[in-house]
Structure formats: C-alpha cells, structure tokens
C-alpha cells in the first residue's frame, strides 16, 4: 500500500505547477486524492471536519445503483433468450448482459470523464466526482441496443451543455443523465423508437437466430397504452420485462432506494411524495375510466411500469437539480409523480412521462424554492417593520 503513496510522492514534483507536466496537475490531483485522502489540514475556525466527503457521497450512490445494474445484466440475457427461444442458464444470461453493457459503460465513462478532466484542467480546478454517478446512470437508462456513437454524442451533449456551461458540478439546472436520454430521444428518433429496441438484437437479428413467433418485444407501458394486456403486477415488480437496461426491476430499485435513504444521500421526501403524486392522479383517472381502456389500468401498475421507479429514486432525487428546501422537496416530488402519470395517460404520442416530467420540474425547482422561502422572508421583514414602528413610538 505504502509503495503506491511513495510512488505518488516521487512523481508529484513533475506534475505540480511548474513541473514538466505541470499542466496536468488537476488530473494528477484527481488520481492522488483517489488513492488516498489528502493530508490537507483545516485552516479556518472549524478545526475538525466530518470524515464524509463528496467522493463518499458519490460512491454511495454508485453502490445503490448496483442492484438494478446486476438485475439489468441478467434481464438483458433473459429477454434475449426469450425472444430467440434460447435455453440459457442463469450465468449465461448474466454473462451476456455483462458483455453487452460493458461497452456502453466504458464509452460513457471514457467520454464523460475525458471532458470532465479536460474542463477541470482548463479551469485549473480539482476534478469533481459527480460524473462517477452520471456516467453509470446514462447507460442504465438507455435501451441496450443503442449505438455507441449515439451514446458518445449524448454524453458529450449532456456533460458540456448540461453541466460544464453552467460551471460544472453543483451548478447545473437539469439532471445531466436525463439530458443525455432526452438528447437521444429527440435527436435520433428513428434509431431509438419502436418496440424492438428494448431487447438486444431484436432490431437486426444476428444470423442463425430466429425470433420466436408472435414475439413483439414491446414494453408493458406500450402494451398497456395500446390496449393489450400487460404482464402481471408481480412480473413487472420483479422486472423480467423489456425496457431500458436498469429501469425494469422495481424490486432491485427498491433495494437501491433503501441504501440511499439509510445513507441519507437521497431525499426520501421526494420519493414518497413522488409515489403519492403518481397514485393520486392515477386513482383519480381510474375512478372515471371506462373498464378495459388504458385509463383503467390500475394506478399501482404505473409505479412498476416504465421508468417511474428508477426516475423517482435515482434521478428526481439528484440534490443539485432538485429543490433545496425541505418543504420544496415534498412539492417537487409530488408534482413529478403527478405530471408523469398525466403525460403517460393523456399524451398518446409519448408513452413514457418520467423523463420529461423530471426535466420539467428540474426547471421549476428554483421557483418552488423561491415560493417556499417567501413566508420565511416575510416573517422576518414583518418583524423588522414592527421593530421600526416601536422605535419611532418610544422616541
């Protein structure tokens, strides 16, 4: 262990300002602080600091993303074997999913971190850890068949226009990962829509593979909206259904949610109020719906279909782009849930409401915060006026 530190010490002068590779100091610093917590000591009046840092916060989110990631690997293999009538073992399915997702994760990290390092270098800042999470989120909300070049473009767009133009981590308005998804959705509609994209190889089957007769590959949400029967609630809850890589299994996402909530990293208020908002609108529409129609699909089904669960747990709770006041978080979550279901039910052209709903309320979050803070400010201002009045009375 110490050898690594010694080696870092040895090469450090070269990479410090003024050294041969001085222009790489941000990159060097990033790797150094990755290997060990730096020896910096406090300089201000608060002499001691909590041992948590942003790296720890981010790695906790990454850990919370592992259950849906692993489930996604298995599910990719499982869906593939169902579509082509293959008789695969559990581990073959996992291996197949791993083999398919790895290039996406690598492209996302290499392209995204490349831009992050470059922009930190240009600004002379330390490299931020935010992309560790974003870089894993992006492949998980893409269909498994997304071409790598589209993914790379989406990452470039998300990191540069979603984040760096605003000043980097902590300054962005929208969730960068969702922005990547939105970019793909709007920029490459022909490549990335339809029923066949959700299962690996379904669009262009490899030679020798034949799609099972009558298999469509449509997601439950697509089935429901076109009036076809959906899989059972339990199946959708477990998640062996077609869909984006990480979004299908509600149970895996729930495990992640528990990790996030126990660690206090993501706001449970947003999650709870999001579910409440979705159920609220869902039940309301259910009450007026004619039996057998899309609107009559039970409200709870919406919680396990599509990207709702994944979005409300991992994306809506992004601390930077969500509301920052605690009351605001309740409102923000509720509106996301309600708006998502509204979109799903009343917008025939667009079946999945979660992405747009979150982006919409990312935009609205500062307004919600402003309105939440207003009473606090008014209370304080009223006090000031009262104080001035009293002063003038006594004088």
């Amino acid at each position, binding site marked *: *262990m*110490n050898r*690594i530190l010694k080696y870092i010490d040895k090469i450090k002068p070269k990479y410090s300002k003024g050294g041969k590779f001085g222009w790489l100091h941000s990159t060097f*610093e990033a790797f150094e*602080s990755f*290997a*060990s*917590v*730096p*020896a*910096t*000591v*406090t300089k*201000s*009046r*608060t*002499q*001691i*600091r*909590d*041992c*948590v*840092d*942003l*790296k*720890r*916060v981010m*790695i*906790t989110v990454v850990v919370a993303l592992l259950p849906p990631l692993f489930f996604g690997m298995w599910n990719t293999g499982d869906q593939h074997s169902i579509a082509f009538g293959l008789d695969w073992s559990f581990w073959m399915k996992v291996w197949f999913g791993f083999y398919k997702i790895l290039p996406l994760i690598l492209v996302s990290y290499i392209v995204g971190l490349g831009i992050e390092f470059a922009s930190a270098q240009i600004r002379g800042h*330390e490299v*931020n*850890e*935010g992309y560790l999470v974003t870089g894993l989120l992006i492949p998980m909300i893409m269909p498994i068949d997304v071409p790598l070049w589209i993914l790379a473009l989406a990452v470039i767009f998300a990191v540069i226009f979603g984040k760096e133009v605003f000043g*980097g*981590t*902590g300054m962005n308005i929208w969730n960068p990962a969702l922005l990547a998804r939105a970019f793909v959705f709007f920029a490459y509609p022909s490549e990335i829509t339809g029923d066949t994209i959700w299962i690996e190889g379904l669009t262009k089957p490899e030679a020798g593979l034949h799609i099972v007769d009558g298999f469509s590959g449509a997601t439950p949400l697509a089935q429901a909206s076109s009036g076809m029967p959906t899989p059972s609630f339990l199946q959708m809850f477990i998640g062996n259904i077609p869909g984006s890589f990480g979004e299908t299994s509600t149970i895996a996402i729930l495990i992640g949610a528990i990790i996030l909530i126990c*660690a*206090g*990293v993501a*706001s449970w208020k947003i999650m709870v109020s999001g579910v409440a908002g979705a159920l609220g609108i869902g039940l309301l529409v259910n009450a007026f719906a004619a039996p057998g129609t899309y609107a009559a699909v039970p409200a709870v089904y919406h919680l396990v279909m599509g990207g709702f669960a994944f979005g409300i747990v991992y994306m809506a709770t992004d*601390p*930077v782009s*969500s509301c*920052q*006041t*605690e009351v605001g*978080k309740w409102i923000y979550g509720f509106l996301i849930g309600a708006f998502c279901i509204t979109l799903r039910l009343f917008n025939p052209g667009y079946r999945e409401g979660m992405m747009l709903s979150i982006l919409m309320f990312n935009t609205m979050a500062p307004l919600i*915060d402003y309105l939440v*803070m207003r009473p*606090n*400010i008014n*209370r*304080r*201002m009223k*006090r*000031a006026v*009262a*104080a*001035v009045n009293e*002063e003038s009375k006594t004088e």
Partner: protein
Amino acid sequence: MINNIRLHRGLDIPLNGDAQQKIWKTIVPDVIAVKPTDFENVMPKLLVNEGDVVKAGQFVFTDKYRPEIGFSAPCSGKVKSIVRGEKRKLLAVEITPDSTFDYVNFDAVKDIEKTSREDLVKKLLDSGLWASIIQRPYGIIANPNDTPKAIVISAFNSAPLAANINFTMKDEIENMQIGVNALAKFTRGRIYINLSAKDYAASPLYKLKGVEKTCFEGPHPAGNVGVQIHHLCPIGKGEVVWTIKPMMLAAIGKLFKTGIYDLSRLVAITGSRAENRSYVKCIPGISMHSIQEAVGNKEEKIYGEEVGIRYISGNVLDGENVGPDGYLGFYDDQITLISEGNYREMFGWAKVLRPKKFSFSHTYLSFLAPRKKYNADTNLNGGVRPFVVTGLYEKVVPMDIYPVYLLKAILAEDIDKMEQLGIYEVIGEDLALCEYVCPSKINVQEIVEKGINLMIKEMA
C-alpha cells in the same frame, strides 16, 4: 415554572478529552499577551511602547474608530515586546508580569441602584471591561450609546468538550448578581438567562435574581447565545441585543464591587492530546508554554505519519488555532489540544468501515455506535467542492433560517437578500456545525464573516 425550549436539530460531536472537574493549579504566568485579533472588527491604536510599565486595568490599545473603547492589560508588569505581522499588523502586546499585582483603582460602586447609567458605562469603558459586552447583530463589541432591546446570557456551553459553567462559576454568584444589576440599567427590555434543561437547578446562574430564566434542551448549538436569541427575541433590522459570557459578567461584578479589573478565570484543558485534563486558574493571555505540563509528550502516529499537536484557544468548532507559541484568547475559557491531521489515508473514502472516525452522515456506519467517542484530528477529510448535498446544513441549525441560501446571498454580495435571509441573526459560531458536516468542505464561517464585514461596511 421555567419556560422550556426544546431544539431538535444540531449535533453533539462525540469526542474524547473532557476535563475533570478539579482545579489542577493556578498558573503564574511569565508572559501575558493582549491580542487585538481576539476582538472582531477592531482596528487597534497602540498606546504603550516596549519597556513601559503598565498596571492591571490600564489601556494597552484602543479601537481607532471607536476610541472610547479600550483594551487593558490583565496584569501589571513591563511591556516586553510588541509583535507585528504582515504589513505591520499589530498581533500582540506581550507583557512580563511583575510579582506584585498592581491594579488601577476604579473605585467600587456602593449602590448600583443609585448610580446613573452614564457612570456605569464610563466605568466599564475606562476599565477596558466594555469589550466583554458583545452585540448582535454582527458579534462585535457593543456600542455604548445603544439601548439594546434585551440582554441575553447563555449559562451553559454545548460545544464539544467545553468548560462546564456550573463548575467554573460556582463561586461567582455574588459577583454575577452585581453584574446583572448593573446590566439591568442598560436595557429597556429584559435580561435573559438561558439554562441547560439537563441540570438547570445546579447552575449558579439559576440563583440570580431580576432576570428572565429559560431552559434550552437539545444538542449543540443549543448553548450558543445566537440560537437562543433567535428563539427568545429574534433580531430584526435596526434592532440590537447584547450578550455577555457568565465569566465576563462576574468580572463586571468584581469591578463594581472592588474597583479592580480582574479577569481571572477557570480554564478547561481538554482534547485527546492533553494529559492532565482538568481546570487551571489563570488570566487571559497566558502562553501555551505555561500549560506545557498538561500537553501529552507521547509521539503519535496516524497511518504511519507522525502528527503534531494543534493548540486551540477555545473549542474545536469556533476556537482559534494559536499554535504552540500562542496565547489564550480574551473570551476563552477552554484550551483544546488535538492531533494535527497531516496524514494520508489510503482509499479512506472508499472503506466500508472507518471505525476511528466519526461521521454525522450515514454513509459511514458510525451512527450504529452512538455511545462511542472519537479522537479528533484536523484532517480536512476530503477536497473542497461546490455545494452539492442539500438539506444537510438545516439538520444542524436549529433556527428558522435557510443556511445555504444565506451563504449564497453572501457570496453574491446581495445585501437585500442577506437581510431577508437573516444575516442579522447569525455569526460564524452559529453555523460552525454546517462547516463541520459539509461534504464539500466549504469554509462556512469564513463566508459568514465576509457577509458580516460587508454589512458593517454597507450599514455604517
């Protein structure tokens, strides 16, 4: 029945190194320093030269902008040296005490009731004890011409390892009562004494008369006077509240009773690197060398790196790092000795468990062992980053304030926003815990200080 205010938000950092409730010794100093840096927003104008002989209670320097406010030598002796820093900034006036304590005689006040406010103020100003009265907003020395809407005194310290006021002030009840009687002349409103709900009846301040008593319950910063003011008589624009520490109240009492400037006090020596953790009797300005016997001389290594000792005058959250050659501050009744954190921990941030470190956040599992105590060190535990995590500061600020928004308003130098978001109600120490828990390692106190300085400049 005493009014009880219960605060839920805050944090008691579990640290090793409490002081035992016994007096270890009386320190006979070989050098005493009077430091302008102890006083916020004071521009010192030096009144003595090297070699001058001063008495206890004689001005050493005054404030250039408020010349009526002076700062006195706490002992008699010869001015040994005048220490200056960069740009000739006055850092300290060092005095070699003589063996006899010569006090300036300010004449005792026989009957405070019959003495006018002006006379009392003048006596406090002349003696240099006026500096013990701090005003809110801003946490600076009070303006003698103001009439505060209340005077608020916190009768307990809730900061980590802080001196126990029930112990340090137990023989000072009479002096404090005189102090309270005098202060009552200064305000139209009430004098609030805020006790700890845990053991309020044991507090010497519980016995004071002519005051409004309130109990505060909850974790740190419940004992911070700023938090208490927020709940008792919040400060609006244009309002002033005065605060004073109990030991300073006793010093005022002594001044009026005997006519001398006597700042002697009990100081707690605390922290994991202190060996003889107990109380010493001393005056402010003693050198850290004079408590050398209490400093642990064992070498300590953390992760293979030898770590030195940080000498803090005050507590770990808002004390001053004075170094081994530094001096005890004017307002401080605590010295904390902890390890420096100049070590590197391999993959510290990625470890599942870090049993030697405490974290308020649940990303480590220290919350599963709530009774465990930790040895603090000064490592920053990470790199400085922009604000990311939200809702965290609010958990340690038991006030109706949005700390992050206030800090952002300060960074943007937006005076109106700062007012709206409560800049008048906080000083650095009230938000010190924010800085402690911040995963982005933002220097919260520095930002607040910047905001306060800006307000003082703009409102002058």
